[in-house]
């Protein structure tokens, strides 16, 4: 039997983990297991003050449980890839692992008052988005679709936390198992 794994560590609040677990299980209609995300300090780049997402994805690939259909890990750290100033998340297109960063999804990052609801909404969308990439979905032209490209947090807010009908059709039918 294959499972969908949600990776996180003690930095992530219980409420966030529970919300994400419910969302992923419902959206992909598959049993979900929790996975302890190891420390990611090795990926820290002191010059940029951020964490390189590629070595973290490589670590996830190495440690991915054998019974995992997909592993979506969640971190509080701010991520980057060498050519870009930051990424909200990173996934192997059509692969097994994905990574989502909470850093730029919080209102505090932009000097605003914390807002739990807004944060959870953004986290849900980004998690679905990166998980969608692992199923081979590319960015969708439909702006309201969760697979639409977002390079600013406002674009995440404009999306819905759901796949559009065209993207939904490209996902495995009836869940993963």
């Amino acid at each position: 039997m294959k499972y969908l794994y949600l990776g996180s560590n003690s930095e992530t609040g219980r409420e966030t983990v529970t919300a994400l677990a419910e969302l992923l299980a419902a959206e992909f209609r598959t049993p979900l297991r929790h996975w302890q995300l190891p420390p990611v300090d090795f990926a820290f780049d002191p010059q940029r003050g951020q964490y390189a997402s590629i070595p973290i994805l490589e670590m996830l690939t190495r440690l991915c449980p054998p019974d995992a259909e997909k592993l979506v890990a969640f971190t509080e750290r701010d991520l980057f890839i060498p050519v870009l100033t930051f990424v909200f998340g990173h996934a192997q297109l059509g692969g097994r692992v994905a990574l989502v960063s909470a850093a730029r999804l919080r209102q505090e990052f932009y000097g605003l008052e914390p807002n739990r609801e807004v944060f959870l909404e953004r986290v849900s969308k980004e998690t679905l988005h990166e998980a969608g990439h692992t199923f081979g979905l590319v960015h969708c032209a439909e702006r309201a679709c969760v697979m639409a490209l977002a390079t600013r947090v406002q674009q995440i807010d404009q999306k819905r936390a759901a796949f559009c009908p065209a993207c939904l059709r490209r996902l495995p039918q009836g869940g993963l198992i």
Partner: protein
Amino acid sequence: MKTHWRILVVDDEEVMCESLAAWLREDGYAVDTASSGRQAVELARQTDYALYFVDLKMPGGMDGIETMMQVRHLHADASIIIITAYATVDTAITAMKEGAQEYIVKPCNPEEISLLVSRIIKVKNLQRENTILRKKLTRQYRFQDVISKSPRMRSILDLAAEVASLRSTVLILGDSGTGKELIARAIHFSGDRANRPFIAVSCAALAETLLESELFGYEKGAFTGADQQKRGKFELADSGTIFLDEIGDISPKLQVDLLRVLQDRSFYRLGGTEEVRVDARVIAATHVDLQQAVADGKFRDDLFYRLNVIEIRIPPLRERREDIPLLAQHFVERLAHELGKEIGGISEEGLKALLDYNWPGNVRELENAIERAMVTCRAAQLTEHDFCFLGQNGSAPKGWTVPSGMSMQEMERLLIIATIQGTGGNIKEAAHRLGIDRSTLYEKIKRYEIPR
């Protein structure tokens, strides 16, 4: 419409190269990578990339500017973005002067790079649409517009290219829908008459007298209604090319008239006494076996030999199945633009369905089938389900021969019965497939006493 465009990322740092490529792939583009300028030029020789991301500083004697210059030498329209970690005004000016479309400093903001790519691709899409529309408008096709990798077709195209600039008459033979007119146009527009008129006449579409006046024109008062002089197609094609399609269907009288034009390069307008001299190259085409028609006494042998100076025989699509995937992808790409659909290609099973079909209507039927499938398709790819109508339209299946010794009425009766059975008794659909009105079909059902 992203899947049609390929992007090449060139950077000696693998992590930089792969991370940008992966990011662009998530955006739906097909992306290749090269770790040096030399490798990039080699790849550019094989593939015409829509967009190149080239790192400015690369070791091995070929930096980003040199790479860009060599790529632009191969593809003058290539869009190149120079990326660098060390921005100076001088390098930016040099890059732009040498033809870089943009110059970006890494790491760059995701929004900046995303907008840049979508702006360039938008322009590429418009340029492509413009080319398609212009071709459609002028129908100025050249040999590179004939899509084929079949060795038989390649040798036909080589022959056609060789004779393009000659004045010799060309006879193009082939089944309906094989692209006879496309080859004729390619011959004309590749030769030294390219800037002169190309006049196409369908000989089967007009009655004998009408065709005569169409071809040769008429003088004022030549017949009732001829209230002014009119120049015919031969005159209009003077110094250019006249394409006589379905030449096998012309009457014996017109065969004589045509022979005279081919021999003397002159003719008389209907009702005229003044000889009109023309210098029009003749390209004729037919689906009829002209040699057989000559043997049967239906086509003049002297005209046949006059026409058959250079013979080009286009094979039916079923004899060059290797072209089906190529043609199908071409039609998908072109029709995606025309129909405004985000369909990038055909699934493996869909392609198998196309390869298994016999294509009695040849390339034209394939084009129509792709269009019909794309109109109803809701996914990003055409699948075998989108082609389930193939073989259900009364087209002749493999090995089917027309039974002889049967009256027209009996034939029609059997066709109607088979079609109604094929639609499960749906009269509206049966009438549609037969190409007649529903009321006409009801009338025939009644007349032939067809049980329902």
